[in-house]
Structures are given as structure tokens and as C-alpha cells.
């Protein structure tokens, strides 16, 4: 099907974009990569009166890495974030999650900030931002605010972006100490939305004993769900951990729902299996982290094209 009619705005810088958004108010939608929005328009699930196309805002096409984390601008495509070596060195979970976002062709166009603003609880980047405790920068005409991830996701497809606001950047903080991460998921078909996905972060001490273990769950709750599973694994190493204990602990807090893709029981089963896989790999990776490593001192910026 074809998209419904809308009024098109093509600002060439941030100030113009914020002016346009202030003017169109709640009738307006932001068009970045469009890999979620345009399907919704084509299927007539959305019919905004105005579209503000931010593809001309090359100032927002950046991936900036500092020792503390990675800032991703609103026009950085998934593929650019995924390929960024400096970002990968500081926040490896970014690439671990991005390689699971749809297909490479979609990642060439779709933006990381756009998929966060879309707030689909099946979107891998929502779990990444939640597990890392990241934040979003929202700008409106005359002011800018930063919203912590806990306050950003409000419900399925609902983020705390107000009328006239533009999500201009996301910040993915580096996890401190000897921390390893992993992102695994299971989908019906390669590249589809996952029936269940798990992102895990495990921190070990100098003797490689687990001091912290957390996991974020995809497609299991209206907003990304982060569980602290440390109690099941504390003091264990990758060799002595009883991973099933962590899966059992997680199961107590998960309330999956069934749909046409998977029953609730099957999702619960997947959550358990993926919790084990993600935690084990994250723990093994944690052991390889140099706690005194000095990564992420470089800054890379990319042009819009």
C-alpha cells in the first residue's frame, strides 16, 4: 500500500528542524531512517499530517567516543555505529546488539536514535540502552534536556518525547571494571524481530569471581526489563557458576505473554535458555577485559553520507 498524504518539511539544520517541530506540534512526526515509520505509513497504521525529514541535518550524523562511553547522533545509521571501531572498543554491547537489528540493508538506512525513539520493546537497542543505564538527549526550540533510560521508555512504542521535541542523541555509557557483555536472541526467521532476546553484563573481580550479573530482556515486557541476577552467581567463576540458578531467578520476575509468534510458555523457555547463554559468554569475556585498559580515547565523526 501507499503512504497517506502529509506535508513535507526538509530542514537543513537543527534550528530549522526544531522550528518546524514547534510549528506542527502533535500533528508532526520526525522522519530519520524511516525503516519503522515508512512501513507503518505504507500499511496506513500511522497518518501524520506533517513529516519533518531530518536527513539533511548532517550535524547529527556522528558517533563520538570518549573514555566514558559513546554518544550517537540522531542521523548516525545503525551500520555506521556497528562499524565504528572506537565505539566497539568502549561499548562492545553496541555492536553485539546491532548485528541483530533486522538485516544489513535495513541497518544501512535505519538510525540507532530513531529505533530508540520508536521505543519498540522488540527493538534490540532499547535493551542495550537499558542495560547500560544510558540516556537520551531531547531538544526543543530554546531548550535541551537529558532523560535517563528508566524515564525514557513509557510503554510499547511510547517514549517520553514531548510535542515539539526531537531526540538528538543517545548516550551509551561504558560499563566499569572487568565487565563482559553479550546479546543473544531467537527469531522465527533470520533478521526478524526476536521472540525473545537477552543482553547480559557480568562484572568479575581480580580472581575472576562474579561480583555483578545483570540481564535485559527483549520482547517480554512493554518496556525494556533489566534484572539483577547477581544473587544467583555471586562469588562463582565461569567454571563454577550454576547458570541455571540465574535462569530460575530471572523466571520469577518474567511474565511473558503469548502471541501468534510464540506462546507464553515457549517465550519463558527461550528466556531461560538465552539467559544462560548470554551470562556464560559475558562472564568469559569479562575475564579477558584488561581492567586498566585505556581504550576509547579516540573520537570519530562521520559525514552524513
Amino acid at each position, binding site marked *: *500500500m*501507499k*503512504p*497517506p*498524504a*502529509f*506535508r*513535507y518539511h*526538509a530542514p537543513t539544520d537543527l534550528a530549522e528542524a526544531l522550528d518546524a517541530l514547534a510549528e506542527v506540534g502533535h500533528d508532526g512526526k520526525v*522522519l530519520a531512517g*524511516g*525503516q519503522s515509520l*515508512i*512501513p507503518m*505509513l*505504507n*500499511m496506513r497504521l500511522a497518518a501524520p499530517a506533517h*513529516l519533518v*525529514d531530518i*536527513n539533511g541535518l548532517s550535524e547529527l550524523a556522528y558517533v563520538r567516543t570518549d573514555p566514558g562511553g559513546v554518544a550517537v547522533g540522531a542521523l548516525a545509521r545503525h*551500520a555506521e555505529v556497528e562499524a565504528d571501531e572506537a565505539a566497539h572498543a568502549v561499548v562492545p554491547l553496541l555492536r553485539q546488539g546491532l548485528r541483530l537489528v*533486522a*538485516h*544489513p*540493508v*535495513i541497518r*544501512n*538506512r535505519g538510525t540507532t536514535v530513531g529505533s530508540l525513539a520508536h521505543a519498540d520493546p522488540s527493538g534490540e537497542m532499547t535493551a542495550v540502552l537499558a542495560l547500560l543505564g544510558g540516556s537520551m538527549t531531547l531538544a526543543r526550540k530554546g531548550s535541551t534536556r537529558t532523560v535517563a533510560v528508566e524515564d525514557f521508555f513509557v510503554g510499547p512504542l511510547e517514549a517520553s518525547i514531548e510535542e515539539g521535541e526531537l531526540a538528538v542523541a543517545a548516550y551509551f555509557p561504558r560499563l566499569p571494571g572487568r565487565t563482559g557483555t553479550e546479546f543473544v536472541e531467537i527469531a522465527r526467521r*533470520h*533478521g526478524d524481530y526476536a521472540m525473545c532476546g537477552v543482553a547480559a553484563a557480568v562484572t568479575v573481580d581480580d580472581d575472576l569471581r562474579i561480583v555483578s550479573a545483570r540481564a535485559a530482556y527483549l520482547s517480554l515486557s512493554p518496556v525494556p526489563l533489566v534484572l539483577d541476577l547477581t544473587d544467583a552467581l555471586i562469588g562463582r567463576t565461569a567454571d563454577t557458576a550454576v547458570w541455571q540458578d540465574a535462569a530460575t531467578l530471572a523466571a520469577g520476575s518474567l511474565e511473558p505473554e503469548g502471541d501468534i509468534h510464540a506462546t507464553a510458555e515457549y517465550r519463558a523457555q527461550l528466556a531461560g535458555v538465552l539467559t544462560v547463554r548470554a551470562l556464560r559468554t559475558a562472564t568469559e569475556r569479562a575475564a579477558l577485559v584488561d581492567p586498566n585498559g585505556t581504550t576509547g580515547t579516540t573520537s570519530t565523526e562521520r559525514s552524513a*553520507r
Partner: protein
Amino acid sequence: MTDTQIPTEQRLDIRLSVNGVPHTTTVTPRRLLSDCLRHDLGLTGTHVGCEHGVCGACTVRIDGKPMRACLMFAVSAQGHEITTVEGLAEPDGTMHPVQQAFRECHGLQCGFCTPGFLTVVSAFLEENPTPTEEEAREAVSGNLCRCTGYQNIVKSVLRAAEITEERKGCAHAEGDAR
């Protein structure tokens, strides 16, 4: 009959560069790039399947990178170089290595999905000239084909890598002869 007030839809004059050729046309903002290529510019090589980004038939290359033409508006494609399946062959008609490989390996049957595969694979081999079979499968994972069962498509990807290499060898040999 009652008069119905039909609001005038915004129309924009756009300039697109497709396969190195500049085009100008007038579109509504909601004109999808896939429809603009086919209906406004007459380039019907780009096929339209699902129109929500799943099937991959409409894939074109934007500044070299494969993207879904059904998930882009024509207005957004201004200022970028668009390559469609029509732009893959040499000007003298010599097939692109990927096209030749799909022909040799029977990588197509009805041909509906083929333009999407050709554009995706041509870009993939520029990034990875010597893929493994697994990498070849991953590369075409975003494109649906209902005829072939994919076996011959994967063979075609690997064969296209060989042909590209062979042609480079020929070019070198010709260079040496001079």
C-alpha cells in the same frame, strides 16, 4: 452531486541522479522512491513486492549502499547517487559479474526477486570479495526468493566473486601484454 473539497496535495520538483543520469520530475512527498523510479522515470527494473521492507525486491544502491527503495521517499533521495539494477551492466552491455553468475548458476527462475539480489550482492562483494558460503548466505538473508530454494543463489554469489577475480586477472594480463 455535491462538491467535495479535495485539499491540494503538496507537489515538489525534484532532481534525482540515477545510474549517472540526471532526471527531473515532480512528485508528491509521499511518492516512494520505488514508485518514482518505476512510474515517473520508467525504470521498471526495480521491482515492488511487499512494500514494507521485508522482501528486498526493491533494493537499490544509494551512494553505493544497498537500501530499500520502498522505505524511502523520492524527495529524500535527492543529492544522492542512485544505482538500480539497470545500472549494473557495463555501458557496452557486458553483464556485471553478479548478473553473469546468476545466469551461469541458474540463480533465478521467475526473476521477480532478482533485481534486489543483484543490487545487494554487487555491494556485498565490493566489501567482501572472497566470501565463505556462510557469509554469502548472511548477505542475501534480507531478500526473499520463492522459486529457487536459495541453493543456486548462494552458488551464484560465490561464482560472482570468482568472475570478479577472473576479470581482474584478464585486465592485468592485458596490461602486461602492452
